[in-house]
């Protein structure tokens, strides 16, 4: 494998799928550690937590294998040039032993300073920064990170608040009323409709900084609305006028229909009318033979002109409104978040950006490093294509510093980033594939570029097929798709591979049969179900596939990106919790009937069964009154044997864990549900991977994975080449903070914006969407190791979805290679150990866990406790025949208890102290050796003895007491003293006399 590791050059490594990107990154970090770079000098940023974990593991493994001399040849080969250079630098002879010697040092270093090795996700790095600079960002240091779900609720609240506020403003109120009329939105959809636009702006506020400043104000928007209302009237009048021109004619049925549809107030309907929609009136469908008059041509043109004005104005109104409200919402959200001290990860990234990279930032770099607790000399970024511009801008100062050459204390720094622009599928999160190359340009003097070209993953046919398709795409779009100009080499050991591309029938459900057929074909060829992955575009249509394949007895396992909260175990256990606490039948039935079901269908045929069973469950727990809900659930898991029901489903245990973490002691069902939901919300539902089953997953989820066989059955759904999902978009002006906000125009009305700036933006956006889609396809195809099946649709007209688009380049069905499994080393499966042990103890659940007080007596008041402690502390100091100790005791008590104890009590204690000092029985103790506040123990129990004295013939033990004293109490105390006496007797082998010293009455009582 080619090494990117000559020295710590600043390097941009463009690594196509399967070329060993992670290997390079891990090796680079390992190489640094081997050559003496301290862990704290390195910052390596990855895209996911999982990647972080893998990276750390790889680095440790590699360095250890070097230290143990068990590294593979290719690894040694990879590291050798660097180590040679290092040896030269140290002026020592290079040898294999040299590597090992350095590796042992590096290994020790690594383990000692492991926490200093910064391998993190960008999110957690930003979080670190904000945790260090909370005040600077205007937050309190103990801010909480909230999930997006939680924030959505707050957003709704904030938005309603904004609307309520602006309704107090006359102009705004007018605007809203006019909007309702112009846009013809249903009343109850009106607010969500507005919120949708508003949120889009709020979410993209970083890009829209300048546009925001130039946004029209409310008066301007109001004027625009007046204007558009006027335009609407004009268009309506013109349409009526237009209609009059047909009056003398006898129109055919279709013509008449079209004609009648002109009589509407709704502009969108007019826009779709065939008589208006066509640029040239004589092209109007069903009017081909009609002889239009010049007047009609003129009116139609006038209408079209007005339509253009109308739609452009509509776009301006929407964007103007979105910018205004978006700004307000942004501010409001900020206010709320500050007040509640909460942030989301994207807020954090944004705040860090503002703090570090904004023009007005007041934080200088030295200060940053000081607070960051060290300077990062080496910055490495993984999956750079998915880095968003704002993320990059916060890293920029670090990268520039790293590239600057000599750094602090003459350490050399470096900057390295690796990724594949073709695999950027996170544009919706702000990822930008263009950034990869932009940087190369910006730092052309400092950065080198390298490309990894050997594909270690896929067979040669697959590599070639991907090459060809990519290059065709590049050729037909030129510079816009320059990243697709690729020429990957296949790694010979991976064999030829197999590619089969077919063109689907034009039937909706064809892909179901297609998938089944291809899976069967692979099985026949010798693959196992486990080898096969079916990649779909969205969760939604994986569903049909699962059902269909299951119906056809093909085992399926689903890799979802769904949350733990939507898994069945969660639903069922929560329903059970609600049922046992509230008796709700609905929840009971959810518990009983959800998959996997607790009962057969016949069970609920009789309502009595249900009632009986509900009572049975309630009975089980009827004595658990003071147990938490979770304890009851645990008990029920046992009695209802829910483990069998979920048969080793990892989600089941994950839900138990989440319940335990979130709400193990909760007794209030509302709060229980809330807490458990919160604890489970950021967890992913897992799927058992050990089964021999076909994997079905989304392309997004498949990123970073690989499978022997990949089937892509259904490209045409969802992957539309035109903006359709959003109402607004941000024009990609590349320069940050300087983009325009644009309104999406539906395909129907493109004709009215032709030749305008809006059209240009729209086209740009559609190009980017196309690029996104092609990236998605690229990711999907490159998951395949040995066989790739793809189903595309015949191309007819202008392609509207990706499948059609691809079929421009693949006109015929194509098959390359032979479908045959490549024998690969099998990864041994982990086997769970079994512990067979007979347990004789009896099991008991949740009943006995209620607390019990070790000291059965009623706990005193706080003042009484203080009183006792203070008195004991004073007595501890007191020594007979030493008056000074009285003063010392008082001083000590004052220092330690003076702040809390009342003056009266303090005086009382001082009096007591004197009483004790003057008590003759007490004084007698000092004829022997005295021990105070001594701990004595037996069988792991500990007692504190107030005072005792060793005399020649015996021990005298005294226990100080204040407060009420009667025979009962004396008996209680005596019991305790007897225990002490027993222990002391053993230690000193002397008789023990025990006394209670009732200080209040200055009475010393001998106990039996």
């Amino acid at each position, binding site marked *: 494998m080619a090494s990117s590791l000559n020295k710590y050059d600043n390097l941009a490594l463009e690594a196509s799928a399967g070329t060993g990107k992670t290997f390079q990154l891990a090796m680079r970090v390992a190489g640094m550690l081997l050559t003496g770079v301290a862990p704290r000098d390195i910052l390596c940023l990855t895209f996911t937590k999982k990647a972080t*974990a893998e990276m750390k593991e790889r680095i440790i493994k590699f360095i250890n294998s070097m230290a143990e001399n068990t590294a593979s040849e290719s690894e040694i080969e990879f590291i050798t040039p660097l180590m040679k250079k290092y040896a030269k630098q140290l002026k020592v002879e290079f040898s294999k032993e040299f590597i090992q010697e350095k590796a042992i040092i590096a290994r020790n270093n690594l383990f000692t300073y492991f926490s200093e090795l910064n391998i993190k996700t960008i999110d957690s790095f930003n979080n670190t920064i904000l945790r260090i600079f909370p005040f600077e960002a205007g937050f*309190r240091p103990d801010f909480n990170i909230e999930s997006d779900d939680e924030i959505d609720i707050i957003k709704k609240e904030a938005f309603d608040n904004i609307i309520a506020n602006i*309704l107090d403003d006359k102009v705004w109120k007018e605007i809203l009323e006019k909007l309702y009329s112009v846009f013809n939105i249903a009343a*109850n959809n009106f607010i969500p409709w507005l919120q949708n636009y508003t949120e889009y702006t709020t979410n993209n506020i970083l890009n829209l900084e300048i546009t925001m400043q130039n946004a029209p104000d409310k008066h301007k928007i109001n004027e625009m609305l007046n204007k558009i209302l006027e335009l609407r009237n004009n268009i309506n009048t013109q349409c009526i006028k237009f209609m009059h021109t047909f009056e003398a004619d006898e129109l055919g049925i279709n013509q008449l229909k079209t004609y009648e549809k002109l009589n509407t107030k709704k502009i969108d309907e007019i826009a779709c009318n065939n008589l208006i929609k066509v640029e040239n009136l004589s092209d109007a469908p069903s009017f081909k033979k009609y002889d239009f008059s010049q007047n009609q041509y003129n009116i139609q043109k006038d209408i079209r002109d007005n339509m253009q004005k109308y739609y452009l104005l509509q776009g301006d109104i929407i964007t103007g409104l979105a910018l205004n409200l978006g700004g307000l919402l942004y501010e409001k959200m900020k206010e709320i978040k500050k007040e509640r001290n909460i942030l989301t990860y994207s807020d954090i990234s944004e705040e860090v950006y503002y703090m570090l990279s904004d023009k007005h930032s007041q934080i200088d770099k030295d200060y940053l490093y000081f607070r960051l607790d060290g300077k990062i000399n080496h910055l490495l970024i993984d999956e750079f294509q998915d880095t968003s511009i704002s993320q990059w801008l916060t890293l920029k100062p670090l990268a520039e510093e790293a590239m600057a050459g000599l750094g602090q204390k003459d350490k050399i720094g470096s900057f390295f980033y690796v990724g594949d622009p073709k695999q950027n599928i996170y544009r919706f999160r702000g990822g930008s594939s263009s950034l990869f190359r932009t940087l190369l340009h910006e730092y052309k003097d400092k950065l080198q570029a390298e490309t990894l070209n050997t594909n270690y993953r896929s067979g040669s046919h697959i590599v070639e097929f991907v090459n060809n398709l990519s290059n065709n795409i590049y050729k037909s779009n030129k510079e816009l798709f320059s990243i697709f100009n690729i020429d990957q080499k296949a790694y010979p050991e991976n064999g030829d591979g197999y590619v089969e591309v077919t063109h689907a029938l034009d039937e909706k459900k064809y892909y179901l049969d297609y998938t089944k057929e291809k899976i069967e074909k692979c099985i026949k060829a010798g693959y196992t179900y486990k080898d096969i992955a079916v990649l779909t575009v969205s969760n939604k249509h994986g569903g049909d596939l699962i059902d269909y394949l299951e119906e056809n007895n093909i085992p399926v396992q689903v890799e979802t990106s769904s949350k733990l909260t939507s898994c069945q175990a969660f639903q069922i256990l929560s329903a059970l919790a609600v049922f046992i*606490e509230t008796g709700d039948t609905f929840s009971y039935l959810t518990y009983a009937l959800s*998959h996997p079901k607790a009962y057969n269908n016949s069970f609920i045929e009789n309502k009595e069964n249900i009632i009986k069973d509900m009572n049975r469950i309630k009975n089980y727990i009827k004595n658990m009154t003071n147990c938490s809900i979770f304890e009851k659930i645990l008990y029920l898991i046992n009695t209802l044997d829910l483990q069998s029901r979920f048969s080793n489903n990892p989600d089941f245990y994950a839900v138990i864990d989440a319940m*335990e973490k979130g709400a193990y002691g909760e007794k209030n069902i509302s709060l229980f549900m809330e807490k458990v939901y919160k604890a489970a919300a950021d967890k992913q539902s897992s799927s058992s991977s050990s089964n021999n089953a076909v994997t079905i997953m989304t392309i997004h989820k498949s990123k970073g994975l690989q499978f022997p066989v990949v089937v892509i059955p259904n490209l045409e759904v969802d992957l539309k080449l035109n903006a359709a999902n959003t109402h607004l978009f941000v024009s990609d002006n590349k320069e940050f903070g300087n983009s325009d906000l644009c309104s999406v125009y539906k395909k129907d009305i493109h004709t009215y914006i032709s030749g305008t700036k809006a059209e240009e933006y729209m086209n740009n956006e559609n190009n980017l969407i196309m690029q996104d889609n092609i990236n998605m396809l690229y990711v999907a195809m490159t998951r395949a190791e040995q066989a790739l099946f793809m189903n595309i649709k015949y191309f007819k007209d202008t392609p509207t979805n990706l499948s059609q688009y691809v079929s421009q380049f693949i006109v015929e069905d194509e098959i390359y290679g032979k479908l045959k499994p490549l024998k690969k080393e099998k990864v041994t499966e982990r086997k769970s150990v079994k512990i067979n042990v007979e347990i004789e103890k009896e099991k008991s659940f949740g009943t006995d866990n209620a607390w019990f007080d070790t000291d059965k007596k009623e*706990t005193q008041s706080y003042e009484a406790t203080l009183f006792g402690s203070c008195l004991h502390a004073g007595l501890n100091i007191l020594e007979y025949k030493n008056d000074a100790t009285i003063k010392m005791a008082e001083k000590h008590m004052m220092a330690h208890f003076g702040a809390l104890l009342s003056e009266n009590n303090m005086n009382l204690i001082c009096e007591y102290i004197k009483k004790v000092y003057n008590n003759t029985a007490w004084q007698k103790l000092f004829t022997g050796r005295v021990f105070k506040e001594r701990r004595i123990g037996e069988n792991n129990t500990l007692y504190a003895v107030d005072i005792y004295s060793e005399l020649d013939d015996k021990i005298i033990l005294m226990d100080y007491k204040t407060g009420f004293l009667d025979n009962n109490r004396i008996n209680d105390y005596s019991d305790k003293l007897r225990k002490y006496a027993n222990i002391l007797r053993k230690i000193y082998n002397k008789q023990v006399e025990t006394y209670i010293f009732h200080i209040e009455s200055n009475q010393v009582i001998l106990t039996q």
Partner: protein
Amino acid sequence: MITCLYIPEDKKALNYIAEITKPKDVYENKTCLIVPTERNVRHLASYGFMYTDILSLSSFYDLAIEYDNILLPKELRPYYLLKAVEKLNKDEIYAVFKNNNEDFTNNFLSFAKNTNNIFSFYRELFAEHVSVEDLSKASLYSDYEMQINILTKLWDIYLELIHKDNYMDKWETYNNFKLNEYFINSYSEYIFLINGFLTKYELTFIKNIGTMQNVCVVFNYAGSLYKQHKEYEKFFNTSSLKDKNMPLLNNNNVQIYECASNISQIELITKKAFEINKKHNIPFNKMAVVMPDTSCKPYFILLDVYKLFDVSAGDEMSNTRIYTLLENLINIYEDLYSFNNTPINNIITLFSDSFLLAIDEISNIVSECNKLIENNRQYINKDDLCNISFIKKYFYELLNADKTMTINKTANIYKTLLKNLKDILTIEKDEIQKCIIAVEKVSTTYKNIKDEVSFLESSHLILSEIMSLSIDLPKREIAVTGILETRNMNYDIIFMPFMTEELFPPKSSKDLFINTEIRNQLNLPTYIDRENLMKNYCFQIINHAKLTIFSYSDELSSIRRSSFIEEIIVKNNLKVEYFSPKEISLIKTDTYHYNIKDNEISIEKTDDVVNHLKNFTYSASALNVYKSCSLKFYFRYILNIDKGVESVESLDNQIFGIIIHNVFKELHNKGITPHSDKYKDEFKKEFTKLIKSYDAYNHSKVEQFIATFIYNTLEQIVNAEITHTNEGYEILDREKCITATFNRFNIKGFLDKVEIKDNKIYVTDYKYKDIKNIKIIKDDNFDNVDDIQLVIYAILIEKEMKKLPENIFYFSIKEDFKYFEGFDMELYDKYKVHIKNMLNEIVDKNINFTQTDKLKNCDFCSYNNICGRNNGFFAK
């Protein structure tokens, strides 16, 4: 004189200490042994020393140092610091806190929470005898120097303030402490057992004792010396500490398990404990579970089904219902204070506890609340709430508390509340007593502070005091402790679960004011040192154990095992086992097994059910439900289960529809007809009246605004109605309920309007829907018809009036406002047959109730949870 020793490799710490102390334990000698923890004291107490006193380090400090003044309770530190901050100027505040937001200093609690780092800076500054000059020199950053100077100034102001109130701060003495000579001289020899780091203050303290009496400092560590040990030796002027060998680890004395889940880790420990106990005859009390973090504690409390685990830290007070109750009450107070009302749901939440609900008074409150919600109420105002006798009796004082008052006064309110609650929460009376003491503690601590603080803040202060309490748990055999508590202790078997990177080594926070670089320059322990110390404690405890069992869970792939585990695996070539039991025996008894095939739900009809169905009265909506999904029909009409009422939070189409329906009805009842002049005005008036019965409307300006759109359409509705009337339609009845027998089946319906014109009958159904969504029946394609309401109406009219309606209209009251034909009466006969068939099908014993094929019907079905169609497809 000071001598330094270390625990030899082959010795257990406390045994060794006992060994060197034993010869000195004679009548003539006065020896004092000082050990780090109470646990150590307890352990040594049973060694039977006769003349040696054993003290924990902290109680020793208390006795050995003399203070000339009253010590400031640590809880009051933030209070005085805040007072001090108020004396700084704006620029200075900004320089330290980087914040000129006034909220920051206005809110005592949040200030206190956020000044921890300042106090830890002070503590270190004084404990390590670091001078401000040293710090400034160590960093070249000028802003830093300024910050440090302001912080020192702040400390001076703080001292001035507390001195004025006759207090002193313990930290004041760190630089210049006074030994209690009388006490020190009462012993002739001191033996200190030391595990971790010593500050300059502690070193000086020991050294000073050394000038008076004999001192022996025994260090306990595993492996080689820490770099700090060199410092200590230099300080004490000795060099007797030696590197030790690390414990020898191999697969015989260390086992490492990767577990499939957290719960399986507990399974592992339980089974292993029994296995070891049986095979090797090691008693359970020689075993210990060492947790990296207290968050792991609950597992050992909850899953202790064999009563093994002795969780010494106890359970959390926040798990009691009294705590939850207080927390919820404070939320309600907050609402009442700001808005004079609170969402009814908050009251329901307050009492959603099966134990509380068993109390009649409380369950009545909750059902009253539910009734209010049914009546479209969302909020309950303060007066109404406090008028509920139960609330009045127990919570009135709290809910009506003034906005600000002294902390003491707040504490009294809580004390009264808690005392009263003891009567109803009998089951938790001991916990409540503990809470009362905690409240008293707060009240005592702050008794001299007469400032008025917001009730909310002091409530939170009290809550956090309560939260810090723990509840004792029954004594058991296997100790479950944190790592720090294991210092110097010995167990034969050590379990260390949850060893993930996240939890171990525990991350100590980096300091804001003294960073690693400065620490290195000044020879202060860095966070890496502290982490490595924790690792060292682990090695110490492993050292003498016969077997150590590490485990961690791999439930999330993003969680890694701790680098500590990694290190011992790598360096000792250890094997990792995988533990993923098919079943967790802790929560499993072999009772029965599930052998249920997860096929679609299909319910056969019993004779009872068929009889029930034969006598059932079918409404149009019941039939519509049947048509959409027969299983849903089963749930809804045979099992009679329904989702409970949910509060109306916003006005949607359905609500507007209901309101307009009711307006028509009300006017009809009042005898106001469309012919009347005041029809229009009354219509609007009635609408306004009805909409005001919704809290969702009353409490939201936005809803009110939206309602104006609807209000503006009323004119058109009324006009359409008037026009319609003017066309000669004469109203016979509105909201007419008709029941009839149809083919031996009972059917019924509420007809919005029945009219007559030219002796012909007309029926109208109001629809609040988008025009395009109002489906009219114009052919006999039964499958496409979702709503057969109008057909039923036709049948009912025919039965009741012995005459078929001439026409059945829909009247769209949402948009367009037109009457139009909803059902082509030409199709009547065909539909009659269709309905007859449907009814026959319903009572057909051979046709089961099944889930619908039309999946889109499931999207908004409220029963989709039950039949598992709630999550789309990936739910499986």
